[in-house]
């Protein structure tokens, strides 16, 4: 049992730090650069994101293993996953509005953004390609969400500082954000030895 738990923990750490989606797999960059201007929005986005990621990882695992494999529809996985994710996002939007209006008021904006995010689609695809079990895919979802949260919050704090800095004109805005991301990514390569193969 404890061995099982360690294995899951390993997936969480691996997907959040070593294979961090933003810094080593380069996914979700649109959102990453879009919402990393203020720390407050970054935090809200990360919370919503991690939740949706776990739920969608679980839901698409169930759909894939209990519906698509028996019906030999594996080749439709892109179409089905995007449907599942978009449906889920829409559903959580509606449910949140009904059950927790205060929370919805804070996080609702981000929900709409999430459905066009590539990470949210990448998690089910990766977990299918790696033939993960149910718990493993949830762990992957959690780890990826945490990794995205770390990246987003780090970046937002950096960019808030950057507002005050004197940046050369052509570099203003996105280009300098890219260069900084590159440097943070370089730091993240230091995590690559964390888990022995």
């Amino acid at each position, binding site marked *: 049992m404890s061995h099982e738990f360690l294995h899951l923990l390993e997936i969480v750490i691996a997907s959040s730090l070593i294979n961090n989606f933003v810094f080593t797999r*380069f996914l979700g960059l649109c959102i990453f650069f879009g919402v990393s201007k203020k720390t407050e929005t970054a935090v809200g986005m990360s919370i919503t994101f991690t939740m949706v990621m776990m739920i969608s990882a679980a839901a698409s695992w169930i759909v894939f293993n209990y519906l698509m494999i028996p019906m030999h529809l594996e080749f439709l996985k*892109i*179409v089905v996953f995007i449907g599942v994710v978009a449906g889920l996002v829409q559903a959580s939007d509606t449910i949140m509005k009904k059950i927790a209006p205060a929370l919805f008021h804070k996080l609702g904006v981000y929900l709409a953004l999430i459905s066009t995010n*590539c990470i*949210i689609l990448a998690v089910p695809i990766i977990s299918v390609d790696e033939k993960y079990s149910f718990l493993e895919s949830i762990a992957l979802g959690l780890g990826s969400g945490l990794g995205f949260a770390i990246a987003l919050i780090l970046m937002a704090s950096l960019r808030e500082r950057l507002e005050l800095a004197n940046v050369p004109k*052509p570099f203003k805005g*996105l280009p300098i954000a*890219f*260069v900084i991301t590159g440097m943070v990514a370089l730091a993240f*390569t230091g995590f690559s030895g964390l888990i022995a193969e």
Partner: protein
Amino acid sequence: MKNETPVTKLFSRGLLQENTIFRQAISLCPAIAVTSTVKNGFMMGIAVLFVQAMVNVSVSSIRRWIHPRIRLPIFMLISSGWVTITDMCVAAFAPDIYATLGLYIQLIVAFASILAAAESFASKNGVIASFFDGVGRGTGFTLALIAISAVREVLGKGTILDIPVLFGSKPLLIMILPAGGFITAGILMALFNYLDKKFSNKATA
């Protein structure tokens, strides 16, 4: 159609003024992920070009029958259909490239640029105009990928299209690492801004 924009204008708009990567800064993920060699960057660009053009054509040809309220899911369905086709073609004809590009080709579905083009252009314009709009955007995307990957391959591996060009000197490992991708993209983007500014200033002066 009345007041039709000339084809060349549609083409150059996607290529320069609204360049997906340097200008709009959307769909950045593959711009960094697959640009460690020119070959990969080029293949990815072609895949996107194909999907973009085909989605534009399909959306524009059925635009009269799409109810506005459900247009986004329809666009997504159309684009995921074309992405699946592209994905299978690449897997069948170029398995070695597919090994590195596979995941990113599947993720073309979630590209903001494709949905944006369908929403802002193809759903309002004729089939031929939409086709050229898609080809223009796709070409702009491909050229941006080639530019980024050329810089990275020369500096990071000392080769271009697998032909060695840096005689004797040691390549910089950092350029083919993820970090190099971000930094290259940032610097090229700044260069694009700078040239654009200079160019447009000259035009008005």
